[in-house]
């Protein structure tokens, strides 16, 4: 709870206690009564209902999933999956960095076969070239 809110509550309770004493000055009301009344005035905790909790969780999950989808876009089509098949750095975008990583791996000789962009059965600098040509392509 923020400090300002705590201070506000403290001030409210003191003022209420003062007002009650002034109202019932004689016979004096024992302090315990005040305390009882104040306790009664405290907000009662909500009744815990399991179905409300479930619905809330489900709604939150739906909101979360929707948010994620909205953030990352709709599920990729088959074409897009193929297009992103060589998204080597996994940032959901094809750019020159993917081509660079293919070239580096091809030079080291440890490129996975899934990076075979031109489908000739091996990963070499040609795959990086094909990928580089693809990433600079403007939409029609």
């Amino acid at each position, binding site marked *: 709870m923020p400090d300002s809110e705590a201070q506000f509550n403290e001030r409210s309770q003191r003022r209420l206690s003062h007002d009650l004493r002034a109202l019932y000055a004689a016979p004096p009301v024992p302090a315990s009564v005040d305390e009882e009344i104040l306790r009664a005035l405290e907000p009662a905790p909500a009744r815990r209902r399991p179905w409300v909790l479930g619905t809330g969780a489900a709604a939150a999950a739906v909101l979360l999933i929707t948010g994620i989808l909205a953030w990352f876009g709709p599920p990729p089509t088959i074409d897009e999956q193929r297009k992103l098949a060589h998204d080597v750095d996994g940032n959901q975008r094809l750019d020159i960095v993917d081509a660079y990583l293919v070239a580096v791996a091809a030079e080291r000789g440890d490129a996975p076969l899934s990076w075979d962009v031109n489908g000739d059965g091996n990963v070499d600098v040609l795959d990086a070239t094909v990928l580089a040509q693809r990433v600079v392509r403007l939409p*029609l």
Partner: protein
Amino acid sequence: MTKRANQPSRRAWQTLCWVFCAIAASAVWMGCNTYISDGRKTPQSAPPGAHYLGGLGLLAQRANSVDARAVMPAEELWIIIPEPTGQQRSDAEPPAGSLLALTSGHVEVAVPLRHTDVAASIKGGISAVTVAQSFHNPYDTKIEAKYVFPLPHEGAVTDFVMVIGERRIRGLIRERELAEQIYSAAKHQGHVAALMTQERPNIFTQSVANIEPGKSIDVEITYFHTLPLVDGEFEFVFPMVVAPRFNPPHVGGNGIGATPRGQAGTSGQRVEVGYLGLRERSGHDISIAVTIEAGLPVREVRSTTHAIEREQPDSGLVRVQLRPGDKIPNRDFVLRYRVASETVQPEFVCTRDDSGGYFQLTLHPPHNLHVVPRQPMEFIFVVDASGSMKGRPLELAKGAILRSLSHLDVHDTFQIIRFSNEALPLTPAPVPATVSNVERARRYLDEMSSAGGTHMIHGVRAALAGSDDPERQRLVSFMTDGFIGNESEIFRAVLQHVGDARLFSFGVGSSVNRHLLAGMARLGRGAVAYVGLDEGVANAVDRFYERVARPALTDIAIDWGTLGVSEQVGGAGDVFYGRPATVLGRFSGTEPTTIRVRGRQNGEWMECTVACDPTRASQHQAVSQLWARKRIQALTDGFLRRYDPADGAAVRRLALEHNLLSAYTAFVAVDASQVTAGREGVTVGVPVPVPAGMRYETSTARPGG
């Protein structure tokens, strides 16, 4: 009275003033538009005899038009002419400081093209070829180099880089008019620039502007090409020289002109090639390196035209290069090889980009394309007996016909038509292939000699004139080097007259016009074969009759399953034995499917199936550009029937979208970072040798064409 008498002279004076003003204004206006008019004037600093691009069409042509008319229109002109005078020489006259060396009895002529380096990489039947042309200025004045050179007619030229020292400037494809304007502006402003245009699908012009004395500029071109598979052999061809072409008088200036070196502008053609003299040689040489990666064992690698060195590090990898002593670029380089395979499978290669999928499917004739008794046929042999065929080419053509006659039986009929200035048939009508008629044909061939122009249109019309023989299928066989400049007219005539006949073309020579011969066969629903000067004709002729003996698979229809094919190119023709068909197209499908190919052989339907999974198929990035190139060819074929401006626009759009050189687009590169000193340079053509086996004196320079 005096006043009245003075009226006319005052008016004349005023008129004179106005005329003067108009002329002066015109002069000012023309001066203002020097850039726009492409500098069609001879700069005052021109060395004597120098030819400037600006005057390419006008001055030189007019100066020589008298000579042109002195030549009989139907004759070919010997291009050996007296040593040109200073007035006649219009280009390539090396200014002071250039070298002419004498080597082994030949005068070595300084030319602005020093070397051509060809590097080809073949994978899966598709070759990626990089051609590097090294231009050099051996003169002491700034030059513009112009080089007319050949490339394979179905090659898709896709990349263009200008190299200045260590700097590589990548050129861009533009609409041709715009590219020419950019190049012209850059040239006039002194920038180094390069322009590549297409004159025919197999003839190109490279222009390089503002090469300073002693400096070099390289141009690198990349093209892709699907290798034809002929009788089980892949064939890689790199053409090296444009042979002299005959341009019938009616083609105007749209042919390909041929001139002796130093006589630019005398052919009357917009595009022309200069040829080295008999004892002349240029320093221009060529190197070729080919790498074949087939994925399967490669065997029987051979060149029928050049001496080669070969290494094979493993069974599926072969490296070939020209032997050092065989570097004169005067004939086609032909390399053939086989790939070991138990069964010949249809091959599906594809690529995808943002605009969709593209595929290339090679359809092999069914192995059960059986031999059936051949029906009687009417064979029409058409022989090119023009001057360019003199010597070995004509002997090969005669040998091919004699060999063919030995395959005929008495149920067949035949005719022989020779053409040069006119078409002359052996007999008024086809005659049965009896012993006496064959003997008569033999004598006719023995007496046949070559002379005159290549008026091929007469041969086409005579050969395809209506047949009166309903019993026999007409087969027309053209034997020619195809050295003409009016290809479109021939294609149009074939389309108009071919009817039910089939046209087979035999290219004979070292540098034949493959664009013409393949086009005639394509439009005539036949096939093409080439016979080199060092090859025997027997094999080619025998294979031809093997094809004829097995009726073609006709009426081909393809069910593409769920592949979603559109804009299919090729495959509509017939499939001959030994000649697979290549189909290209676009597709949208993503699921495995079965392609069904149906065709009819001898009246019976045959069907074969091809399993196709586009997600697992081999990929080649060039398939989209190869498709675009074929599509352009199909659209251009359509122009022969009727020109539709919409189709022209489609060609332009296709070429631009696929970065393709075409008749409507051109590559241009400009070095805008620096301006060379002085005015624009002298235009110097690159003279080339006359093709091997062709006689220099019978080349086809025809001024005024």
